């Protein structure tokens, strides 16, 4: 059959694959299981490789799926490090004993609240759970609480993500720990009525919808707002830091962070990478590229962002984001949030 000769065109890419694969296994490289967007990680990693000569392989996926993989693989894992954009996931890995304890001197530059108490993981960048508000709408100039999102007047005007989103779950955990399950449950019910089955699968789409006036208020991570404003400087949106004031619980924070696998055979190289990521230079690159808050003490966030310390942050240690994660999911399921 003549048609089979068409298969020959497969040879070219196949050759690429084989060369690449053998090349990557021939050299000793650090392997990161990464649950964070490639585009934010790659530039920093490239800089690290340039400085130290240590090669790094990024194995990207969903944080939770990669943590599962790490757990199941046990001592057989290739991973030297685990990178996640949710403290809850990091802490879960720590509870399972998947990570090494890092040297106190190594992680000391990072604020103690933004790393694990036993130093099994360390936060690299922090994000705030804030409200994005349409400046032309009736909600523009109010002091808001996230609990206002359950207000019936917001029916059809509220943008939230679907409830499987890691940032969303972490946020709800903070509120649950701050005000109790009962109030959180009522709040979720109110929001469920307000969104009327229509939730977003991406934070960026919420910001877009608020900018277009289709929604008045949205609950997002702060950097999505600046990402939109960078592209559309005239968009009628602004950031509102919720739950301020004397009795407010404060804004929920979460961190993206990194941990060293317990079964790594390259501890010292892995520590070098961690050290680089929390160095001043690494922090600037890792956090600023996404307008996040650097976790290293003494480094300011991008000028657009409300400075850390200028507003109230909910006092819920990052550890609890992992410890109470399943309770939060139970609560969400009990309400039947979409």
């Amino acid at each position: 059959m003549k048609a089979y000769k068409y298969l020959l065109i497969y040879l070219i890419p196949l050759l690429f694959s084989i060369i690449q694969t053998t090349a990557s296994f021939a050299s000793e490289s650090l392997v990161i299981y990464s649950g964070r967007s490639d585009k934010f990680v790659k530039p920093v990693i490239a800089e690290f490789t340039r400085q130290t000569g240590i090669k790094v392989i990024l194995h990207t996926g969903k944080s939770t799926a990669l943590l599962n993989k790490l757990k199941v693989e046990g001592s057989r894992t290739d991973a030297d490090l685990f990178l996640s954009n949710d403290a809850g996931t990091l802490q879960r890995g720590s509870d399972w004993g998947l990570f090494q304890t890092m040297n106190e001197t190594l992680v000391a530059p990072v604020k103690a609240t933004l790393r694990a108490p036993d130093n099994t993981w360390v936060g690299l960048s922090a994000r705030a759970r804030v409200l994005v508000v349409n400046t032309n709408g009736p909600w523009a100039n109010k002091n808001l609480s996230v609990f206002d999102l359950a207000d019936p007047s917001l029916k059809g005007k509220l943008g939230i993500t679907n409830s499987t989103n890691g940032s969303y779950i972490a946020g709800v955990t903070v509120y649950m720990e701050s005000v109790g399950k009962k109030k959180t449950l009522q709040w979720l019910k109110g929001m469920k009525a307000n969104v009327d089955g229509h939730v977003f699968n991406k934070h960026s789409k919420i910001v877009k919808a608020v900018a277009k006036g289709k929604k008045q208020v949205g609950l997002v991570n702060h950097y999505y707002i600046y990402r939109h404003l960078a592209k559309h400087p005239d968009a009628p949106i602004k950031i509102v830091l919720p739950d301020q004031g004397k009795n407010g619980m404060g804004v929920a924070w979460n961190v993206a962070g990194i941990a060293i696998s317990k079964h790594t055979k390259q501890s010292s190289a892995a520590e070098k990478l961690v050290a680089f990521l929390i160095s001043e230079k690494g922090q600037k690159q890792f956090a600023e590229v996404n307008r996040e808050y650097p976790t290293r003490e003494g480094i300011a966030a991008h000028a657009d962002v409300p400075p850390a310390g200028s507003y109230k942050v909910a006092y819920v240690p990052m550890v609890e984001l992992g410890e109470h994660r399943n309770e939060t999911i139970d609560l969400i399921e009990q309400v039947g949030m979409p």
Partner: protein
Amino acid sequence: MAVITSPLIGYLNPGKHFTSLGGLATLVVTLAIIPLLFVIYNSLQLSPTQWLGLWSSRLPELLQNTLSLAVLVSIGSVTLGVSSAWWISRREFPGRKLAVWLMILPLTIPTYVFAHIYTSLLEEDGWLGKLWIMLTGNADSIPDLYNIWGVTLVLSLAGFSYVFLLARTSLSQSTRTLEEAARIQGASPIEVFWRVNLPLLRPAIAAGLAVVVLHVLSDFGAVSMLQFQTFTLSIYLQMSGRFDYQAAAGLSMVLVMLSLTFLVLERFFRKRQQYYSARQSRQQPVRKATPFETAMIWLWLGFITLLAFGLPIAWMLSWSWEAWTQGLINSDFWTYTGNSLLVACIAASIAVLAALPVAFYNARRRSLGSQTLLQLSSVGFVLPGPVIALGIISVLLAQLPFLYGGLAALVIAVVIRFLPLAVQSQDAAMAQLTPSVEEVGRSLGAGPLENLWRVVLPMVRGGMATAWVLVFIDTLKELPATLILRPTGFDTLPVRIWIEASEEMLELAAPAALMLVIGTLPVLWIMMGSKTSNNSSAT
């Protein structure tokens, strides 16, 4: 029961029923059901109260969602697939060969790519969104796809080609004598379609629908992009969101039951209708279409093509162009493509070889035992990809740790997932292999091996080619198991599409999707070639 276990008994008790073929088939099927055993083991750990919890909290909704989706997608695929197959096989019109191609090209596009493309097309600044605003002047009413209708649209467009392929084969094989008899008796064309063509088509439609429904039940890409809660998505969320393997296993168990019931029903109905599919020998030339008919045919086929292939390809090309001009396409793309092809080639070859004893054994025996093996081999199709992946990791690490770390784990998982495709198409090809054919070979002095090589293999070659191509295509598009099992740093095209799409880097997702389409074309070419030269084998 004695009959069901006969291959096993034969295996253990060589004196009596031993056949090496049966043993080999049993071995293959045993390997294929490892993930199922893993699921059964894990779901046995669930306490009755946990089952009750699952039952009351999520099962009703999941059952309703999954079943209604299966029904709606079936309706969608039959409408698209049968109508196009009927016109193409019953009328001669300009561009008929091209039309066949246009109807199967959607197979090259994975469901998650469809989902992604249509959601971005329907945004306010997407092509369809703009069109909508132009027509209605209202941006708020743009339909969105995050519901059962959206998922139905996506899965029907991605799956109708299977129905088309099978319906076309069946339609071009049955002769028109029955139709003519009906026409002579005064039946209108519509009556003929309902009362003659459709009953004749039923087995083919059933077989096509089986493939479509199994794809729906196991689909992960589209439902996760569109956030529609089916079993697969819920199982994945239990596993990755809550780290609750037991609940995931429990849900998988229900899904397996559901799919097996469906498969058994399908087999049962197909068997009862075997009479209809009896072949008739007299073939007549196809009638020429009138100009009006030609216009109508192309209007309909053009509409299907526009939705199922034209728009997606245009989208891919336009974003790929964007990527090209930004200089984003580098040698990495070739590596991803090569990785995808590597896995697909290996998996397809192994799956075809592994399926051979199962199908061959069934062709020889036609016993309840061989049928059972055949059914059990379909288990890969009904288990969600993430579950298979986890089962494979656990079993490999516990029993065969040296196989873990390279490509082996991924290849095993993919072979298990798509073994049913290989088994089914080879089984169909072997249906024509009556014992007398082999006896003739034997009587002419051929030994068993020579017989296999010179008589059996040539006869089933077409079926094997089809099997290879089907497994190849599905492996190329495979996402959930690959995401979990790929070797470290080994990214395939679907993995890249998934990563870039979830970061909304459309200009990087599009070229990868385009590459996937291009990569599938040569094998489709082969399949269509073997179809025309060896038409009867592909029923």
